[in-house]
C-alpha cells in the first residue's frame, strides 16, 4: 500500500505555511513562505515546492486554515476549512496533551486559548488593535536596523530594565525613540519592548483568565527568545515552545483533515497539479442594492469555482461548493 500523507495549509496575513504529515501524525515536510499580499500565488508556489521536493506522493486529505483559509480551501479542494483557534488547539494538544494554556502571536493577530482536560474552554483574540504582534516587531527591528532573527537574542543581553509603553504601537515607538535619545543601550530598549509587548498581550487577552501550566507558546513570534523570556518572568512559569511552533496552525489543519477523511472515506483534494492551473479573481461590484457588495469570484482555468463577499447570497449560492 502506498504511504498516505496529509496536507495542511495556513494562509496568514504575513506568512503562508504548508506542512505534510504522515499517517503517524509525524511532520515530514514543512514550508514557510511570506504571503506578501498574494495568497493565490503563494499557495501555488507552496504546492509547487512541495511537489518538487516530495515527488509523486499520495495525499489522502487536506485542510486549510488562517485568515485566507476560504481562498486556500477552494483552490486546493480542502476537506476541512477551519478557524485558527481550533487548529492551533488541536496541534498543541497533539504536541503536548497536558497543555492548559496556548499563547499564540502571529503576524497581525494574537490569541490566547485556554484548555481544560483536552478541550478548549475559553479563548480570546486581539480586537481592534494589532499592537504587539509580529508586524510591529518587524517594523521596530527594521527601524533599529537589526535583523528580526537577531532581535530576540539581542534582548537577552540586556542588563538594565528600560520601561517602554506597550499600550499602543505609536506610543511605543515614540517612547523607544525617546529612550534612544537619552542614550539607553539598544539591547535594553529591545528587551523593554519585549516586556511591553508581553504586558500588553496579558492585559488585553489574558485579562481575567486563569493561566495555568503547561503553557505552550506558538506562532511566528515564538522564535523571539526575548519575548519568551519576558513571558517566563511575567507569568512566573516555564514556557514551552513546541518544535514546529511557527507552523502549528497548518499542523492542526492537517490533523483535522486526517480525521475528516477517516470519517468521510474520501478526499476532495484536487491534487498537487493545482500549482499549474491558472487561478484568477474576478472582482464584481454588485449593483443589486445599496449595499454595493464587493463580490470576488475565484476563477480556475477560466471557469468560476467560487464566489463570496455578498451579503444576500445571490452570488455565493450560484456556484455550489467545489463545482
Amino acid at each position, binding site marked *: 500500500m502506498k504511504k498516505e500523507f496529509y496536507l495542511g495549509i495556513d494562509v496568514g496575513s504575513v506568512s503562508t505555511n504548508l506542512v505534510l504529515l504522515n499517517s503517524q501524525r509525524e511532520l515530514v515536510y514543512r514550508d514557510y513562505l511570506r504571503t506578501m499580499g498574494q495568497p493565490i500565488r503563494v499557495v501555488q508556489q507552496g504546492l509547487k515546492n512541495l511537489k518538487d521536493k516530495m515527488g509523486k506522493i499520495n495525499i489522502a486529505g487536506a485542510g486549510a486554515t488562517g*485568515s485566507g483559509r476560504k481562498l486556500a480551501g477552494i483552490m486546493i479542494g480542502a476537506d476541512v476549512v*477551519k*478557524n*485558527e*483557534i*481550533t487548529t492551533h488547539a*488541536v496541534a498543541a*494538544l*497533539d504536541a503536548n496533551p497536558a497543555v492548559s494554556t496556548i499563547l499564540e502571536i502571529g503576524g497581525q493577530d494574537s490569541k490566547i486559548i485556554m484548555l481544560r482536560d*483536552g*478541550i*478548549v*474552554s*475559553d*479563548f480570546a*483574540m486581539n*480586537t*481592534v488593535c494589532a499592537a504587539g504582534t509580529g508586524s510591529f516587531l518587524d517594523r521596530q527591528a527594521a527601524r533599529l536596523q537589526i535583523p528580526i532573527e537577531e532581535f530576540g537574542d539581542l534582548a537577552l543581553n540586556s542588563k538594565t530594565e528600560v520601561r517602554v509603553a506597550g499600550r499602543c504601537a505609536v506610543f511605543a515607538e515614540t517612547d523607544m525613540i525617546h529612550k534612544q535619545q537619552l542614550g539607553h543601550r539598544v539591547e535594553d530598549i529591545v528587551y523593554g519592548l519585549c516586556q511591553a509587548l508581553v504586558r500588553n498581550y496579558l492585559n488585553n487577552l489574558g485579562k*481575567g483568565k486563569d493561566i495555568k501550566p503547561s503553557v505552550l507558546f506558538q506562532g511566528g513570534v515564538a522564535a523571539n527568545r526575548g519575548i519568551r523570556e519576558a513571558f517566563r518572568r511575567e507569568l512566573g512559569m516555564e514556557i514551552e515552545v513546541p518544535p514546529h511552533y511557527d507552523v502549528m496552525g497548518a499542523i492542526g489543519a492537517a*490533523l*483535522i483533515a486526517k*480525521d475528516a477523511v477517516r470519517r468521510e472515506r474520501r478526499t476532495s483534494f484536487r491534487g498537487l497539479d493545482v500549482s499549474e492551473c491558472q487561478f484568477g479573481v474576478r472582482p464584481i461590484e454588485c449593483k443589486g*442594492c*445599496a*449595499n*454595493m*457588495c464587493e463580490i470576488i469570484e475565484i476563477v480556475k482555468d477560466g471557469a468560476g469555482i467560487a464566489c463570496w463577499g455578498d*451579503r444576500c447570497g445571490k452570488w455565493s449560492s450560484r456556484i455550489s461548493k467545489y463545482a
Partner: protein
Amino acid sequence: MKPRVGIPRALLYYNYFPMWEAFFKELGAEVVLSDLTNKKILDDGVNCSVDDACLPIKVFHGHIINLKDRVDYLFVPRLISVERNEYICPKFCGLPDMVLNSVRELPTVIDCTINLRNSYSSLRKAVLDVGRLFTSDYRRIYMAYRKAAQNLKFFEELMENGATPLEAMRGCHSAKGEYRYPIGLIGHPYNIYDNYVSMRIIDKLRDRGINVITQDMICSTELDRIARGFSKPMFWSFGKRIMAASRYLIDERQARGIIYLVAFGCGLDALVGDLVERRIRKRGIPFCLLTIDEHTGEAGIDTRLEAFVDMLEWGGAKECL
C-alpha cells in the same frame, strides 16, 4: 393626502415599532420606513454624525438621511426613561438634538419626551401632543393609543415565544427548526437584530443548528424577578435586561454558551459586559464578547463565532483528535 410619518429602522425600532406604527396609522397618517440598513446608510451616518458617537447612533443618522426627503414628519422621540426608576442610555435623551444638529433640511421632527422614571404622566402628555398634530379629536387619539398598546403587547408575546423582532413584525412565529442545543445571544436589540450591523449573527448560528435565545425572548416578568435579586439595582433598563437574561439563560434554559454583542464605544456595554462576564465565568459557562464597529470585517466575526461554536461542540465530539 395622508401625512407621511417617517420611522427610521434603527435603535428602538426593534423594540417599539409595532406600537408606533399602529398609533400613527390609527390617526390617519401613512407610516414610511427607511430601508434596511445597508452600506450607504452606514456611510451616510458615519459621515454626518459626530465622531465620538457609537455605531448604532451613526446608523440612526444614516436612516434619517435615507428617509428625510420622502416624508412630512420624522419620528425621533426623546426617550429618557422607559421604566420606573430606570434610565436608558443618555444618547437617546439627546437624540433629536443630535439629529437636528447634524442633518440639514429635515422635515418636521416629532420629538416628544418620554420619561417614565417618576410617573406615567409624561407618556400621556406625549401621546396627546403627538396626536394633536393629526387630529383634534381626543377620543380618537385615545383609541389610537389603546390600539398601539395592544399591538405592542401582541408583538412582545410573539418575541417571548422565540421570534426575533423582524419575525414578530411579520406576524410570524420563530423559524422553528430542528435545533441541537440553545445558546444565549445578548446585547442591545439594535445591535443584535440589525442584520447589517450584526452581520446576520442570528442566521449564522441558526444555520449551524443552534437555538438562539435573546433577552427579548424571555418573559419580562421573569427578568424583573431576577433583577430584583441583584445586589444593587441596575438603573439602566437595557443593562438590567441583559444581565438578568444572562442568568436566566444559564439557570432556566440550559444555554451552552453566551455571546454578548457589543458596539465599540458603548459605555453601558463596557460596564455591563464586565459584570456579565464575571458572573458567567464563575459558573464555568463559555462566554464570548464580540465587538462591532463600522470597520469590522465579517471575517473577524466569523472566525470568532466559528471558534466559539467549535469550542461548545468539542466536548461532544472528542473523536476530533
